[in-house]
Structures are given as C-alpha cells and as structure tokens.
C-alpha cells in the first residue's frame, strides 16, 4: 500500500520505451539519443521557417516552441515521475515577470532572465520538499494553491507588476543576436528561431535524462515507489530534483514569452494556463518529448485556426482532456505509434 498513490497512470511510457531501448544499442559510433532528438527538432524548426508565408505564422510558431519547452518540463514531472502539478504556470510567470521587471531596475535582460529562472528553481526547491510528500490528488491541489498564490501576487502588486493590466517588457530583441553572426532576420523570424532552438535543447536534455542513471531512478518511482526505495533510490530527493527541473523548464519558457511578446499579463500565471500545459502533455503523450511537441502544436495552433474557439476555450480544453482519457489514455503520439506498429507487424 505504501507508495501506491504517489504515481499516476496518466502517462505510461509508450513511445518513450522504444526511444530508450533504441538508445541502448547506440555505442560510441552512432549519435546519442539526445543529439538525435536535437537534430530532429532543429529540422522541424527549419521546416516551419521554410513554409511560413508571413510574420503571423512565425509568431504562432514561436508560441508553439515556447509551449513545447514548458510542456517538456511537464513531461519530466508527469511522464517520467508520475507527479501532477497544477501550478506550473506560476513558475512560468516568475520567469516571465522577473525578465520583464529586471530592465526597469537597470538589470540587463539576459541577467534578469537568468535571475527569473534561478528564482523559479529556488522556489521549487523550497516548496517542493514539503509538498512532494503528498501524492496524487493532494499534490495536485497543493500545487494548484501554489500557482494561485503566485498569480495573486502578480495581480495585486501593481507597483511592481503593473497589476491586472500587465506590463510592457523592454530590452532585448532577438534580431540583434542574429546580427552578431551576420544574419539579418525580421524580429518575428528571429524569435521563432531562438524559441525553436531553446526548445530543441530542452528536448535533448529531457531525452538524455530519460536514459541516464538519474532518469532510470525517476521512471522507477513512476512505476513503483516501494521498489525504487528498496534499490536505494532516495525518492524524496529524486522527486524534488524533477520538480526543480520542470520548474526551470517553465521559467525559461516564460522568460522567452515575455521577451518575444514584449508584453505580459498575470494570466500567464493563471490556473487556466497550468491546466493548458498539463492538457498539452496529456493530449500529446506525457511520456515523450514528441508528445510535448504534438500537444503544444495542436493546442496552440487550434485557437488560431478556429477563432470561435476563443469563446469556448475552457470547454474545448476540458472536452479534449475527457476524450483523451477515454479514447487514448497514453496520449496521441503513443496511440499513433501503436497503430503504426500494429500495421507493420
């Protein structure tokens, strides 16, 4: 009975499993799984750049990669370890707001960004230890409360954050980064590439983790907390690490959003944003980074295609969650991979 509740069966590692076992055969001569994932992601970023007809597409594309990055953090937490967080928008918003506030106090954007990420990581470390003792629904509620607190601070402390109206983010433009290497891109294109490359790095890191000693310990906790302990895994420490890592993913994504959009509101830290992140992970398949990408792509692009969606956003999110749970509990990517494998054999 001990530990049975700590893991959720939301996201068994379907395609993930194949990913790992492939990596087993890879010796020194073949490229590692992390690098391979990085290259696949970069190819997809480039593919977008090749087919996008206007700045509008680049802006949506940028959002897709930023969301992919944030959801990759959820994959580490939910897909690898089996922990549900409904407060990750809070970490996302900390990354975004510190990046936005920094320049107002003379701190340059890159430094402010690093500060925001560090602050989110530190908060996850401090808050994680006590709340990660909880499991299942209790943990979800505790993280929900944490997210609410952060959202309230952002909404109320108008002197610092601009309050409910949000604030303008001054500072960096990604265009200048590319100018340094002699490339002249439009601002939207430049942010698209930056977001895409950071998402690719994030995906590679998550894949590296999955096949590493620490990653095996995390996946072990997902399947059996008791057995993981009996093998010497310090479960509390491992969970705390995963929580911090996933908070850092969210904060980096938040910082990128602040810079790319040039404007942020407290909604980035709102409950609905947390739910959105988890829905993306569950829809795509929480066990793999490709699930994060597919979930982020669908739920970011869909509202753009169906403008009517905006009015019913909450209903559609809820509906997608319910249908995913009923029809394909492991998410879209494992579901399609299974269909594909069945057809082949």
């Amino acid at each position, binding site marked *: 009975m*001990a530990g049975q509740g700590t893991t959720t069966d939301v996201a*068994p*590692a379907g395609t993930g*499993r194949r990913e*790992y*076992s492939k990596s*087993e055969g890879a010796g020194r001569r073949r490229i*590692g*799984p*992390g*690098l391979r994932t990085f290259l696949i992601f970069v190819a997809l970023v480039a593919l977008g750049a090749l087919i996008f007809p206007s700045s509008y597409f680049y802006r949506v594309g940028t959002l897709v990669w930023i969301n992919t990055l944030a959801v990759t953090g959820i994959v580490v937490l939910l897909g690898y370890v089996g922990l549900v967080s409904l407060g990750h928008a809070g970490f996302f918003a900390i990354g975004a707001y510190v990046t936005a506030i920094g320049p107002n106090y003379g701190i340059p954007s890159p430094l402010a960004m690093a500060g925001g990420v560090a602050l989110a990581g530190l908060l996850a470390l401090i808050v994680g230890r006590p709340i990660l003792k909880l499991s299942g629904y209790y943990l979800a509620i505790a993280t929900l409360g944490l997210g609410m607190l952060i959202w309230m601070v952002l909404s109320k402390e108008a002197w610092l954050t601009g309050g409910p109206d949000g604030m303008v983010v001054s500072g960096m433009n990604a265009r200048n980064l590319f100018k340094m290497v002699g490339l002249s891109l439009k601002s939207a294109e430049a942010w698209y590439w930056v977001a895409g490359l950071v998402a690719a790095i994030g995906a*590679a*890191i998550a894949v*590296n*983790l999955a*096949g*590493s*000693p*620490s*990653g*095996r*310990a995390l*996946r*072990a906790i*997902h*399947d*059996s907390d*008791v*057995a*993981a*302990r*009996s*093998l*010497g*895994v*310090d*479960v509390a420490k491992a969970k705390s*690490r995963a929580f911090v*890592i996933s908070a850092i993913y969210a904060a980096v994504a938040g910082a990128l959003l602040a810079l790319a959009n040039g404007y942020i509101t407290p909604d980035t830290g709102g409950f609905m944003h947390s739910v959105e992140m988890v829905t993306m992970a569950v829809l795509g398949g929480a066990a793999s980074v490709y699930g994060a990408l597919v979930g982020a792509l669908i739920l970011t692009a869909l509202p753009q295609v169906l403008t009517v969606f905006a009015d019913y956003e909450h209903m559609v999110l809820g509906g997608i969650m319910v249908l995913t749970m009923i029809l394909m509990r492991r998410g879209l990517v494992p579901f399609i991979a299974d269909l594909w494998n069945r057809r082949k054999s």
Partner: protein
Amino acid sequence: MSLEIDGIGISFGGIKAVDDVSFTAKPGEVTSIIGPNGAGKTTLFNLVSGVYAASAGRVRIDGKDVTGLPAHALARRGMARTFQNLQVFPQMSALDNVMTGCHMQEKSNLLADLLGLGPARRETDRSRASAMAALERAGLAELAHRPASEMSYGQLKRLEIARALVTGCTILLLDEPAAGCNAVETREVDDLIHAIADEGKTVVLIEHDMRMVMRISSHIVVLDQGRKIAEGGPEDIRTDPHVIAAYLGAHGAAEAEAAAHA
C-alpha cells in the same frame, strides 16, 4: 553480513501482526520463514526492510543498529529484497528494470545526466553490462528487451531477484521467489538461491513450497499469528509437533519428508 532481528513487532489497529519475533540470519546460509497465510511473514519483511516502522524491537546488521532507517538507507547498507506481490517497473524493459538496481553503484551527477556527458554514458554502459550478466544468471537474457508488462509471473519473480542481485547486496530478502514457477523453473530458482548463499550472502526466504524450503534452508523460523512458534534446522522443524499442528499438517509433513529423502 549477519542480520539480527531482536524482539521486533508491529500492531495494526490493536492487532499484533508481528509480535516479539527474534532470530539471526547468518552469511552464507539460507534462513527460511514459514507459516500459514496471515502469519505475518511479509509484514516481518516490511519491518526489516524499512517499509513499515516497527513499534517494538531492533534490527541489526553485523551488530549495528539499523532500526527505523528508511528503505533506501537500508539498501545502502547492503539490504535488498523482492516482493510477494511483485513490484517490478512494468513500463520498462526487463533490462531497464535490472539496470535500475545498479542505482547505488552509478557514480554520475545530475548535470552529466542532463547533458548526456561521458560519465552518464559510461555508468549506463557499465550498468547495462552488469544487468545483462544478472539477467543471464536468472535465465532471462533472451527477454532483456521485452517490456516487463509482457512477462509471465514466474519470469517477473526471477526479474526481481536479478534486480536485487545487481544492487551488490550482502543481505537478500526473498518473498516467495518460486510462486508462479513451474517445477523446472522452481528448480532453477532453487539453484540460483543456493549459488547466492554460497557466495557468502545472507539469504532470508519466505516460501510455501515445502520441498524447496527443506532442500535449501540451513535454518527455519516458523511464524503463526505473528509469533515465532519454532526455530531450528530442517530436521527439527519437520518433526516439531507444534509446527505440524499449526502449519505443515499431515500433507505438508509428508511433502517435507519426501523432500528429505529425495
């Protein structure tokens, strides 16, 4: 290393599931715990391995008091176990399951793991090699890449033994390792346990298969309703009237007898 259990006990809602049980398991020997269903055998294992906190008594490893240490700390002191109700990692391959057992030997840091640096890969390669060797030993080498969820009960039992072995344990607690195994497999498990004890490890075994118990045990502890009712060598236990009354019965005694003369 020897494992000393001294007057250990735990109550659940006023019922003493394990009550004042003492025994010592010595290195190089197989110590078996037998008794009817509900006698408290698995609860005893859970107490010893840190899953439950004992309400009375001490556990010592080589004279050092380890009572109340959490499970992962006990693992670090050389204790490994398998589970009666199977605690495998069903979503991982058999190989990954066993590789997880190498956790304590893996000297890699989180940064190297995240960036896929040399140490992470080297440790993974090393764990893979020792996990393959352990799978080989447990007769599961061909199933290395099979997801654990697709393996049979008997195979999973042996998978747990392989996973416990790679931890580098000196004390191994086995909870019904032969359950779900056919006669041939039981014999294999039997040989495996023998070999493990011969390496000088301290083996503590819970098992219902009396033939197996009598064949491989040096020492037997009999529990009934949470209390120790007898202790001794296979010969003493087989003929102990209390044990026959409480557990073995006429049939069990005959089985044990048959094993003795087999």
